[in-house]
C-alpha cells in the first residue's frame, strides 16, 4: 500500500536578509492510509511550517515529499494549486469561510477550481451531500454570520470534503471553539476517519490530541516523539458523559 504521506528528510529554511531561520530541520515521516494523526508542539516548534508543507502551500527547501506517491516537493505554483485542489482538504482555526456567501456556495468553492467539468446541478448535489455528512444540509442557505462557530467549522469541513481528498489537514480546528463544540467537531473527524479518510491535525491541546490515533510531537524543527495514542477518547462517549454530568447538576440544583 502506498503511504498517504512520505516525508524524507524535509527541511525548510527561511532567509530574511542575513539571518537564516531553520524552521524544519530534517523530518522523515510516513503516514499510512486510515491514520488520524495529531502534530503537537509549542509555538516555534515548526509545526505550522510542517502544516504548510504538508498542505502544499509551501515547498520544502530540502528533502522529498511524496503525497499519494507523487513527488510534490519540486512542483511549481500552479501545479501545487492543482494538488491542493485534488488531494487536500483544509480546515482552519478561524474557519475561513467566505463572508456574505451562503454555506452551500462556500462548499462549492473548491469544485469551482476543479478540473472536473461539473454542471451547476452536480455542484449543488455534491455540496449538499458534503453538508449532509457534517449534518448541516438543512442550513445550506445560511450565511456564515447566521451560523454558530461549530456550525461554521462543519461547513468548512464539508468544503474540505467536497473534492474527495486523500488528506484532510486541520490546523487547530478547535482553537476558536468551546469545549463541548470542540468534542462535537472531533466526533465529526472520528466519523470521517472511520469511513477511511486520512486526517492530520495540528494542535497544542493535549486532550484534543487524545481523540486521534497517533500523536507526533515536534520541538525546534525536529520530531521528538511519535507514538500511538493511549487511552484514546471517543467523542460519542465524552458527549454522553457531559450530558449525564449536566443532568446531575440540574437534579442537585
Amino acid at each position, binding site marked *: 500500500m502506498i503511504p498517504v504521506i512520505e516525508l524524507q528528510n524535509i527541511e525548510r529554511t527561511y532567509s530574511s536578509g542575513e539571518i537564516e531561520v531553520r524552521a524544519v530541520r530534517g523530518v522523515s515521516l510516513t503516514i499510512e492510509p486510515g491514520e488520524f494523526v495529531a502534530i503537537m508542539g509549542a509555538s516555534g516548534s515548526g509545526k505550522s511550517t510542517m502544516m504548510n508543507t504538508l498542505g502544499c*502551500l509551501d515547498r520544502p527547501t530540502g528533502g522529498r515529499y511524496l503525497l499519494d506517491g507523487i513527488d510534490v516537493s519540486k512542483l511549481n505554483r500552479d501545479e501545487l494549486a*492543482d494538488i491542493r*485542489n485534488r488531494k487536500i482538504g483544509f480546515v482552519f482555526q478561524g474557519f475561513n469561510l467566505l463572508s456574505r*456567501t451562503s454555506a452551500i456556495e462556500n462548499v462549492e*468553492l*473548491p469544485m469551482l*477550481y476543479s478540473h472536473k467539468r461539473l454542471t451547476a446541478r452536480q455542484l449543488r448535489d455534491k455540496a449538499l451531500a458534503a453538508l449532509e455528512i457534517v449534518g448541516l444540509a438543512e442550513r445550506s442557505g445560511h450565511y456564515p454570520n447566521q451560523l454558530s462557530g461549530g456550525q461554521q467549522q462543519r461547513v468548512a469541513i464539508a*468544503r474540505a470534503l467536497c473534492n474527495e481528498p486523500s488528506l484532510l489537514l486541520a490546523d487547530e480546528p478547535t482553537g476558536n471553539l468551546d469545549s463541548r463544540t470542540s468534542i462535537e467537531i472531533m466526533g465529526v473527524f472520528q466519523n470521517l476517519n472511520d469511513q477511511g479518510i486520512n486526517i492530520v491535525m495540528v494542535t497544542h491541546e493535549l486532550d484534543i490530541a487524545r481523540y486521534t490515533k497517533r500523536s507526533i510531537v515536534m520541538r525546534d524543527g525536529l520530531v521528538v516523539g511519535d507514538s500511538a495514542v493511549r487511552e484514546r477518547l471517543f467523542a460519542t462517549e465524552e458527549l454522553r458523559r457531559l450530558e449525564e454530568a449536566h443532568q446531575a447538576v440540574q437534579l442537585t440544583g
Partner: protein
Amino acid sequence: MKIRATFVMALRALRRNKMRTVLTMLGIIIGVAAVIAMVAIGNGATSQVEDQIAALGQNVVLIFAGSVTSGGVKAGWGNAGTLKVEDAKAIEREIPDAVAVSPEVRTTNQVAAENQNWFTNIQGESPDYFSIRNWEFAEGGSFSDQDVRGATKVAVIGQTIARQLFDNDDPLGQILRVKGVPFEIVGVLAGKGLSVMGQDQDDVVIVPYTSAMKRIMGVTNLREINVQAASPDKIIQVQNEIADMLRQRHKIVDDHDDDFTIHNQQEFTDAATATSRILTILVVSIASVSLLVGGIGIMNIMLVSVTERTREIGIRMAVGAHGRDILLQFLIEATSLSTMGGIIGIVLGIGASKLLSIFAQWPTLVSPLSVVLSFMFSACVGIFFGFYPAKKAAALDPIEALRYE
C-alpha cells in the same frame, strides 16, 4: 475555472458593496453619457447645417460685386457696382458648364396688397434662379425669359408674404404694389424655412431682375450673379473660368486684386462642418478626461478591494485557485464595473439627447458609432485600470494571504 462562475462571483462581489459600486461607476457613467449626448448634439447641428446648405441649391457658384481686401478698405460685397448684366450674359454665353445663370439685385421695401402691407426683401432674378436654388412652386409658376426681356410687372412671392398679405385668399393673379408699382402675382413658392444665418427665406418677393432694376431700384449694376455648374466636379473649373473671364472683361492687370468675389457652396459646407468638428473634438476630449478619471477611480477601488479581500484570495488559493483564476476574477470585476457604467452612461446619454430635442428643441442625432465606441472604450478602461490590482491579487502568497487580518 469556469468563466460563468467567475462572472457570477464578480457580480456578487459588486452587489455586496452597492454604494461603492455605484460611486465608482459614476465617473464612467458621466464620461460616456457626456460623449453620447455631445456627439448627438454635434451631429444634430451638423445635419441641420447640411440641410440648410443643401437648401442653397445644387452646385452653386456665387459671384459678388466687389471684394473683401485684407486692408479692410473694400469691405462688403454687393454694392461695389462692378458687376453688370453683360457679365452675366457673357457667363451664360461663353462658359458651357455654367448651366444656369441668374443675375441678382436686392433691396428691402414696403409692399402692399389691398389694405395690408409688409416690409420685406425684394429680389430681382432670372427664371433660372428657381432651378439653381432647387425651389419648388406651391402654386402657379415662374415668370418667363420674355418677362425678363420686357421688364414685365410680374412677381413670385414666398410663403411668408402669402400668409401676411393674403391670409386665406388665393394670391395668384392678385396685385402687389412695390413703391407704388403694381405687380401681378404669377407664382407662390414652397416653404424653405430658415437660412444658415437664421433668416426667414420665405419672406421674399422675387421679380424679373430687369423689372427690379428699372421699376423699383433704378440701378444698372448687379449685386451678385448666381451660377449653377453642370456637376459637383465642375464647380471649381466653372469658378476659375468665371474668374478669368471677369478679370479680362474688367481689364484687371495681373498684380491687381479682383473687383468681385466668388464663393461656392462647398466653402459654406466646409466652414460649417469645420466648426462643428472642432466643437466635437473639444467635447470628446473633455469626456475622455472624465473617462480617464473614472478609470483611475476603478483602479483605486480595486486596489482597496484586493487589500480588503486578501484573506478571501488566500482561501481561494488554498482550495486550488491558480494565480490566473484570481487575476481573471478581479479583471472581470473591474471590467463589469466599467462596462456597466458604460451601459448606464449610454442610456443616460441617449435619454439626455432626447430630452434636449424635446424640451430645448435642439436637433440631436445619436450616432451608433459613438455608442459602440464608448462602450468599447469603457470596457478597455476596465481592463486597463483593473489589470494592475488584479495582477497584485494574483501574485499574493497563499500562506501570507491566509494569515492576513
